[in-house]
């Protein structure tokens, strides 16, 4: 009897709940370690640049295609509702606001979570499985600095740049559709676009993208760094990195909406 009681007591609430909070604590420790190590020399500039290239340039084809299509489709689908009120001329303004405020950052972040997050998770997990991280550690170099700090920084810097690029491509897609249907010139289209955007729209979009980038980087690295051993762990880490990053991105989107609305005084 007594023995069974002891065994029951090896968790606080229930095993699953305990594990959730332990994981949460680990995540915060991981993030804290990032902020400590990012400021302590030596800095791995070259590796940051290499990662920026990996994250930025390698995602361009996919993002170009997606952004352009989103621009065309969204414009096309919005037209009927506006024309009911005879307000087609508002189309560029509506699209500009929708793309810059929400769709650009969201589409970019979700695609990057799939493409960048999974590859970060898989790469770091496979380095862990094959003891490459241990090898760095015993050769007196800091694997956290070389692997995690560089990737998180690169993701944090590159996602906002990619978001601006996707905004632009999506607006070009929208222009193609508007130009075909309402024969508006490129200049007239972009004058209307920029007239409709406020300073707050642009800055909040950039800040939000920075947070998305940080999330994608840190989640990918965390899942890779804490993957279980064995090849199965690699696949799981990649998968978990994507799922967790996407989930967090939606939560952050929701929070940022509340905050921006509050600032705007709505």
């Amino acid at each position, binding site marked *: 009897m007594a023995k069974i009681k002891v065994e029951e007591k090896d968790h606080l609430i229930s095993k699953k709940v305990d594990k959730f909070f332990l994981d949460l604590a680990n995540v915060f420790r991981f993030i804290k370690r990032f902020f400590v190590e990012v400021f302590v020399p*030596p800095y791995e500039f070259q590796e940051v640049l290499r990662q920026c290239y990996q994250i930025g340039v390698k995602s361009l084809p996919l993002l170009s295609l997606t952004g352009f299509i989103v621009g065309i489709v969204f414009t096309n689908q919005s037209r009927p509702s506006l024309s009911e009120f005879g307000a087609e001329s508002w189309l560029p303004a509506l699209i500009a606001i929708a793309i810059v405020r929400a769709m650009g950052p969201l589409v970019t972040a979700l695609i990057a979570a799939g493409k960048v997050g999974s590859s970060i998770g898989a790469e770091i997990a496979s380095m862990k499985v094959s003891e490459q991280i*241990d090898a760095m550690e015993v050769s*007196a170099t800091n694997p956290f600095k070389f692997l995690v700090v560089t990737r998180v920084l690169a993701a944090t810097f590159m996602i906002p740049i990619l978001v601006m690029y996707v905004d632009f491509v999506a607006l070009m897609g929208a222009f193609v559709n508007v130009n075909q249907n309402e024969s508006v010139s490129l200049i007239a289209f972009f004058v209307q676009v920029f007239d409709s955007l406020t300073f707050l729209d642009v800055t909040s979009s950039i800040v939000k993208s920075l947070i998305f980038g940080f999330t994608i980087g840190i989640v990918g690295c965390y899942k890779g760094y804490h993957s279980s051993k064995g090849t199965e762990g690699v696949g799981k880490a990649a998968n978990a990195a994507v799922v967790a990053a996407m989930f967090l991105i939606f939560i952050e989107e929701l929070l940022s909406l509340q905050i921006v609305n509050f600032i705007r005084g709505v």
Partner: protein
Amino acid sequence: MAEAVIEIRKLTKSFGDLHVLRGVDLDLFKGENLVVLGKSGTGKSVLIKIIVGLLTQDEGTLKVFGKEVSTLSNKELLDLRLKIGFSFQNSALYDSMSVRDNLDFPLIRNVKSLSKAQRDKKIEMVLESVGLSQAINQMPSELSGGQRKRIGIARTLILEPEIMLYDEPTAGLDPITCKDINDLINQVRDEYRTSSIVITHDLTCAKDTGDRVAVLLDGQFGAVGTFEEVFKEASEERIQAFYDYNFITK
């Protein structure tokens, strides 16, 4: 005897219910090659991982250069690791980097005084000593298992460590390459007066490189001494079996 660079006393390590090391006592003396033999899964790799601080022991003491490893600060641990070369069982080459960058990686970060030309010279030198000069621009994925192993050893030798820990340096290699590696291990000891622990299943390697041999049985060292002492006078059946299966004769 010479001074001990590693002193292990009553060291234990468990993973959950699995008691891997159960009171290990061992000394590594300056300038010797100590061969550690033992069946697969007896905790040989775990032991040397504890020495470099990748794992921590449950109980007991482990002193390297007179300092307890588990109580070192981060900075002290880094300094210690600079003096220890660790060659992994599975080589653990950085597979996103070429052979040259693999060797450059520890060098550029730890020996800041070297110029690019000096580093290149050094890389060429260690590659030559493991007989793989031609592989310098290849990626790890393009190398054979034995070649990776030798590059892994080269990567640890490049920092000229005072202690070398070889985890199965000859596993899966042909007899001729094995001999080359054994010669290399001896050459490293003779040239740099390095103290080494060599983990192996290969008794030829043990015989050629081991100044002393230690056999790990059930989480403790069953026998320690010269190759002859351990095997000629082996009273323990399992040690004898080790010998018999390796040389098949009796």
